């Protein structure tokens, strides 16, 4: 197991390196230039070439792009430093560190709600195939798939405000000081994100359950005289979960994309908002930093998913001879 883990962790390094090059390069391909933005912002639009060159040098943007990349890389490797924001005098790490917990909580809660809805409904739908409950579950999943979460989110913010003058809270208290207050803020946005994710997971769960329920070992379980509950929960579900977990790994990047939008709608100061602001302002270090952190997170989740196989499926117990 530890050998396997070490191998996987080492394999992350080249992936990260390639990802960092892409991230660093692509960000600078976005049309528009941070210098122009800064100069016009400060009403230096008509300023001389000299001012512009000074600013460029001060920000370290005068060097060729590969030199910029190498400097950036050197700072990451030697000091764990992702650089400073071009606009604010803060380090990228502290900006991200401040906001990451909010996005993580939103993401984890969404995932939690997605699974909380999808797994039981998927199981029920498969076991009671073609009944009213199955149809209701499947209809819900179609609706959740079809309704974009930015639209659902906008409605939830606007309609109650119009009708009752109520708006979802967004004063974030630290979770460990007042968990209830904290969860109140995250409840609605994570439910909306979770519901849209749950649709895909539910359909997968249902399909896998139908598949597994037809397997010979499920027939064996019936032939043992087990009650339905045991046959389904003990023999079918665990087998059906394996591909569903793969799907969850694939959904994490999509989930991250969803948080960017939902944070904006619910005015949550998370990574998504940071990223959006940074893109608008062409704040390159922030953008590359966020992408890099997101990349590490996605890779970590997928590594966790692979390790989960080992827990679920004895055939993939690593290093077991």
């Amino acid at each position, binding site marked *: 197991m530890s*050998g396997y883990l*070490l*191998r996987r962790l*080492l394999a992350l390094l080249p992936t990260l390196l390639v990802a960092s090059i892409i991230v660093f390069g692509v960000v600078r391909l976005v049309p528009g230039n941070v210098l122009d933005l800064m100069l016009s912002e400060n009403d230096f639009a008509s300023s001389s070439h000299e001012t512009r060159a000074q600013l460029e040098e001060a920000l370290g943007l005068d060097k060729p792009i590969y030199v910029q990349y190498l400097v950036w890389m050197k700072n990451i490797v030697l000091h764990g430093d992702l650089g400073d924001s071009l606009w604010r005098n803060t380090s990228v790490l502290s900006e991200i560190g401040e906001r990451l917990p909010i996005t993580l909580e939103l993401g984890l809660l969404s995932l939690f709600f997605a699974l909380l809805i999808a797994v039981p409904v998927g199981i029920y739908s498969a076991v009671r195939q073609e009944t009213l409950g199955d149809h209701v579950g499947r209809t819900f999943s179609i609706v959740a798939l079809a309704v974009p979460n930015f639209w659902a989110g906008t409605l939830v913010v606007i309609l109650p405000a119009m009708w009752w003058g109520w708006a979802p809270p967004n004063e974030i208290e630290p979770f460990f000081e007042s968990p209830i207050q904290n969860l109140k803020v995250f409840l609605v946005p994570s439910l909306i994100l979770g519901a849209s994710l749950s649709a895909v997971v539910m359909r997968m769960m249902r399909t896998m359950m139908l598949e597994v329920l037809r*397997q*010979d*070992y499920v*027939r*064996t*379980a*019936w*032939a*043992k*005289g*087990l*009650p339905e509950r*045991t046959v389904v929960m*003990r*023999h079918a579900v*665990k*087998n059906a979960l394996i591909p569903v977990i793969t799907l969850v790994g694939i959904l994490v990047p999509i989930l991250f994309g969803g948080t960017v939008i939902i944070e904006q709608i619910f005015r949550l100061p998370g990574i998504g908002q940071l990223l959006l602001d940074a893109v608008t302002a062409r704040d390159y270090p922030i953008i590359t930093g966020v992408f890099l952190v997101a990349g590490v997170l996605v890779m970590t989740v997928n590594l966790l998913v692979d390790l989960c196989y080992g827990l*679920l*499926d*004895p*055939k993939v117990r690593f290093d077991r001879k």
Partner: protein
Amino acid sequence: MSAPLLQVSKLAVEFNGGVQAVRGVDFTVERGETVALVGESGSGKSVSALSVLQLLPYPNARHPDGSIRFRGEELMTASPQRMRRLRGGRIGMIFQEPMTSLNPLHTVEKQIRESLLVHKGLSKADARERVLELLRLVQIPEPERRLTAYPHELSGGQRQRVMIAMALANDPDLLIADEPTTALDVTVQAQILDLIKDLQQRLGMGVLLITHDLNVVQRVSDRMVVMQDGRVVEHGETAAVLARPTHSYTRALVEAEPSGQPRPLAGNAAEVLQARDVRVQFPLKAGVFGRVRDYFRAVDGVSLQLRAGETVGVVGESGSGKTTLGLALLRLTGASGQIRFDGHRLDAYKGRALRGLRKSMQIVFQDPFGSLSPRMSVEQIVAEGMDVHRIATDKADREARIVQALEEVGLGAELRHRYPHELSGGQRQRVAFARALALKPRLLVLDEPTSALDRSVQAQVVELLRDLQARHGLAYIFISHDLKVVKAMSHYVLVMKEGRVVEEGETAAIYEDPREPYTRQLLAAALNIR
């Protein structure tokens, strides 16, 4: 007089769409006797057996009529709770595929224990004793170590033993065995059948055995019930029925054993294939960086030669390397050693040169269900190879070649617009032959081409293959675990074990005077019945 252990009368089973799988079936099983339910695929034998425990996919299946009495108690109208108590309690069941019939995520102990906990309410500690006792009963070596094993860590035979242990956990009165040995190697088959027979006598159970294999019937059953198209066509004492079958279908079954011999070889037949010291190795890796520590030798230095019109049979149990050898000879897997095909050094060829030769060497696989693409019509399947090699000159020629290939394997030209799922197993395998033959090959590797087919269909396929060989001077590599079919097909036989050839020779010599103990063991297990 007490009621029979199991009495099935007028049983009928209907599936959605109005398919009547079983129509008015009667049979009984007494305490301490083994009754065999015999028939080919689609005869309704498995459906009848599953009806007893109500394991059919209800409500897609229905019983319009019939009664099933177990020790006098009617099961058709029994409550779900009552049925649960009988399943795995008074009536145990084992299935054909020990690979898939055990839950891959549960240990052996957990799977066997489950029956005990549900029916007897034992504590886990007490259950462990009983599980060990059961594993000893079914003769699993080192039962203590097997407790924590998962199904994939056991051999096929061991898995079936675990299944039997599970079925017997609560001392059932009746054991239903649905093709319990079909998926196993011949030597293992014999062991499992002996085990079932032995346990039945010791425990005094009634056994209902479902099988298509008359050897199995003869070996273990007291009485037999022959089914065809959902009806019982003949029943009686096994020995009497086999000796003097009265119904034409039973007679056909009994006579369906593949027989005869391949046509004699012409003295001047040209050499088609010569292989010397063929080896296939798979690396075994270990450590953080996956260094290669050792090799698994799937094929370990095999040599053979083959002339036009000749069949070399390759026999061996699963894992002996016979399929890998077939793939290696056609360069479908990496291998070392010399392979000369039709004067070409195959091992030195690659890419385009090799592709040019491909049409002259074809392969047909075991499973006619899995090896034909379900999305292609018969015509597309047969024509694909021809199109790749640009054999047909124009559209009319292409059409003519397709029809010719189909007719050669005994299929009507009208079948070419059908899809594989619309064909029977025998027809599918014929399509696979037609696909290969359309390219006018010189060499055909036949990898268990008859194993997935019913006996009566097997005999026809063997006849067809011999006929095609004589007509076109085809050379065959015939890979099979079925020694009877190999005998009916081959001029020369290689016996493989663990990647090596342990014995080889003319077919008659091998079958009449086997020298190696392993060959003798194989032959004894496969042929000792008649």
